[in-house]
């Protein structure tokens, strides 16, 4: 994934309406009219948001002229979530170990009575 592609995804996700649309689509594909219902927005405004999501590859739309059902395509979203999820997990596990390390270091300090000598 290029950084430009990622920027497109991030930009698409930066808007709360578009995130709400995606959250709605997770429960299944639906029509534009149905999607527009919970938002106080005109159909053209919703269509604009859908175009941004479509360009980012986050949703796909059916080809039927009248009823163009929208569905979520999780690929780019998963890529975005991945680095955050990955690093959240990485650091959380590392910090558990850091916590143990700090506990041990303080125990040793007390035991040997070196006090601040162990601290830079």
């Amino acid at each position: 994934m290029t950084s430009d592609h990622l920027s497109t995804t991030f930009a698409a996700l930066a808007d709360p309406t578009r995130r709400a649309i995606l959250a709605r689509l997770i429960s299944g594909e639906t029509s534009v009219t149905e999607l527009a219902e919970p938002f106080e927005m005109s159909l053209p405004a919703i269509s604009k948001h859908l175009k941004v999501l479509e360009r980012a590859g986050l949703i796909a739309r059916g080809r039927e002229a009248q009823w163009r059902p929208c569905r979520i395509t999780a690929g780019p979203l998963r890529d975005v979530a991945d680095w955050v999820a990955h690093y959240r997990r990485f650091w959380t596990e590392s910090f558990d170990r850091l916590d143990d390390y700090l506990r041990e270091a303080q125990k040793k300090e007390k035991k040997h009575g070196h006090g601040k000598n162990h601290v830079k």
Partner: protein
Amino acid sequence: MVTGKTMSNEEQELVLTRVFDAPRELVFKAWTDPKCVAQWWRPRGFTNPVCELDEQPGGAIRIHMRGPDGTVYPMTGVYQEVVEPERIVFTSTPLDAEGSALFELLTTVTFAVQGGKTKQILRARVIKRTAQAAQYLKGMEAGWTQSLEHLAESLAKM
């Protein structure tokens, strides 16, 4: 214990807050002394065969993490700021097997005294990313699959 984690919308930032029951100087040392860092800077089940830190602005970071299956995940980085004992800023770049950069993160860690304990806040964001990045994450996270429910949760938190 993780007390806070949020991801801002525009910057896609990872923020992790944690309070350690230890003096700030000790926590800072644990972040900057290579011998200390090697003991904790890695995922569960990993070891650090290489851990070299030149803890000064412009100084290099070189850490190799070896997974339980023997695969080595090297990373390099550069310190941007080292302000003892309150703040460290560094870039980090995980490398693939050929030594090419996958993506680059900017990480800021701050340490504040909080009633005899130390409140640490880590912020990280991607500043560069390449095509191999997704593959790398997939490898390191083997066995970890993300369902649509997980995606729904992520979206709800954003």
